[in-house]
């Protein structure tokens, strides 16, 4: 049998190195909005704006790129169309390096591999990525929705002017280009195509991308998510072309992919705000179900981070209980109708929490704020004490006990406001955080790491006030509300009052004081 020559059958890769100029990227990628479509290049424009704001100076284009997500979309859906959609994409990489040196630098980095052992070569590439690489975007051969798998750095975190930005739901991932390994920290984004995925599918896909940083969850493509969602229930018609998912189907899809869906209804502003704050601070991306009930319109977006007020402003949820979540000012969301890392202001009172997504007005649809109806948090199945349970334990038992301990030790005459928050994190991450704090004694960290048998995730209730510093109460997240297992109390402070309080609280809880 004759094997055809490479030029006859195999496409030839073309790498192009170009200067980045805002407004010209669509031409470079040969993108033309097709007739009879609205907003075809809107998301593309948002990406262009985003990388420009990050200081992009140059781009590298792979003209022939097989994308793991699109090839699946192609196999399941686009290959069965009359129009012969190609099975490959383009991929564009963004760099903060001048265009005249980009190609030379990449070649130099590859050649360094001849001189350096693999580990050192990888470190050189990582340093280059850290300094100059902004991420990539896969450009699908779908003129009406070209933006495919896109991982970009978030905006630079700021801590000034009374606000602090925190992109905690991002992760590092590796990609390969022209023989070098590039690293980027971000949360995956794509434009909805309404062929294999609409907003609900895309929001789950983005959230699971981050979960894979914590757990060995199989990487599911948008097409696979849509299909598993429709495996056991199809309340709203055929799965493909995607006609959206129900909340039930979203939960089924998350469960089928090995993760546990934690769904909460939003009936109370302060409670919902606390869940969002705790999950985002824990680095667990929530999917927000947003509604415009009067129009019977529902949308899903994924949280990439949050903006918080600083310094802390007291937010009393009950006498003596100051919820740190009150500092939540805005969320950064991936909205597949618009773009990545969009600021979404959080406001509300009473039973309602509203979310106003920045730049939504460009869609020229109703731009009234969305009402948050549900929060869907994908988490490891072993976490039984979720954010709701942690909050209940804290407000029902821990905060009153701390107040009683303060009264017993006569540390304050009045009922002071105790600031609190909850998190659920991997123990190693918690220890790392404590090591960075100089108000935690090493003997406490040693007691923690040598005497506590950790669950896979540890639930933390941190409570504090200026006059007493802070106290952490740790919980086994595999326990349940009927059988709560407290792992210990750790003083986050050095004063004698702080330690005395931690000790009395440990006694009241019948648990260990982690202070050896």
């Amino acid at each position, binding site marked *: 049998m004759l094997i055809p020559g490479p030029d006859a059958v195999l496409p030839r890769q073309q790498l192009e190195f170009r200067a980045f100029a805002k407004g010209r990227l669509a031409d470079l990628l040969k993108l033309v909005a097709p007739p009879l479509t609205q907003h075809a290049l809107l998301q593309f424009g948002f990406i262009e704006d985003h990388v420009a704001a990050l200081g992009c100076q140059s781009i590298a284009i792979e003209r022939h790129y097989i994308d793991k997500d699109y090839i699946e979309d192609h196999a399941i859906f686009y290959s069965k169309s009359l129009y012969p959609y190609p099975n490959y994409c383009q991929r564009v990489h963004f760099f903060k390096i001048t265009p005249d040196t980009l190609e030379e630098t990449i070649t130099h980095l590859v050649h360094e591999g001849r001189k350096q052992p693999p580990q050192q070569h990888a470190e050189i590439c990582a340093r280059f990525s850290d300094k100059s690489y902004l991420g990539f975007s896969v450009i699908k051969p779908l003129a009406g929705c070209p933006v495919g798998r896109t991982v970009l750095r978030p905006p630079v975190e700021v801590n000034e002017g009374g606000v602090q930005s925190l992109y905690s739901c991002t992760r590092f991932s590796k990609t390969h280009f022209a023989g070098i390994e590039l690293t980027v920290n971000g949360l995956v984004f794509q434009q909805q195509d309404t062929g294999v995925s609409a907003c609900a599918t895309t929001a789950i896909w983005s959230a699971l991308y981050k979960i894979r940083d914590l757990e060995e969850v199989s990487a599911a493509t948008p097409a696979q998510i849509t299909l598993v969602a429709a495996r056991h229930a199809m309340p709203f018609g055929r799965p493909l072309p995607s006609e959206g998912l129900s909340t039930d189907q979203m939960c089924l899809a998350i469960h089928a992919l090995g993760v546990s869906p934690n769904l909460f*209804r*939003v009936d109370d502003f302060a409670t919902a705000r606390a869940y969002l704050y705790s999950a985002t601070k824990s680095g667990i991306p929530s999917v927000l179900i947003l509604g415009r009930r009067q129009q019977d319109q529902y949308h899903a977006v994924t949280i990439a981070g949050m903006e918080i007020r600083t310094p802390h402003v007291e937010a009393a949820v009950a006498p003596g209980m100051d919820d740190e979540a009150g500092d939540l000012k805005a969320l950064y969301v991936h909205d597949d109708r618009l773009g990545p890392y969009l600021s979404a202001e959080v406001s509300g009172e009473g039973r309602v929490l509203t979310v106003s997504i920045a730049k939504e007005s460009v869609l020229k649809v109703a731009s009234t704020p969305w009402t948050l109806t549900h929060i869907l948090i994908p988490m490891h199945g072993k976490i039984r004490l979720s954010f709701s349970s942690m909050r209940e334990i804290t407000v029902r038992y821990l905060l009153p006990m701390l107040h009683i301990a303060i009264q017993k030790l006569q540390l304050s005459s009045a009922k002071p406001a105790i600031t609190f928050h909850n998190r659920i994190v991997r123990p190693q991450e918690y220890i790392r955080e404590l090591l960075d704090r100089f108000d935690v004694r090493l003997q406490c960290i040693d007691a923690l790491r040598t005497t506590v048998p950790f669950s896979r995730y540890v639930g933390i209730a941190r409570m504090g006030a200026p006059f007493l510093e802070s106290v952490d109460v740790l919980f086994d997240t595999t326990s349940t509300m009927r059988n709560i297992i407290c792992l210990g109390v750790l003083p986050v402070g050095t004063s004698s009052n702080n330690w005395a309080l931690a000790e009395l609280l440990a006694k009241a809880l019948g648990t260990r004081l982690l202070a050896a």
Partner: protein
Amino acid sequence: MAKSDRKSAEQQTMDEETKQFFEKELERWEAVTQPLVDAIHDSERLSDKDYSIRINTRG
């Protein structure tokens, strides 16, 4: 501090008097915390209606 060191990483216990003090005071706190606990329970109380929302905003 010395006391803390001595009892380090051991299960802590309270004398009966302190225990009773805590129990009594905790009862007083119930009225304060109940609305917060109710709000948490409401967020967890899901019905068929919650699972049947159709999410399909296009853009």
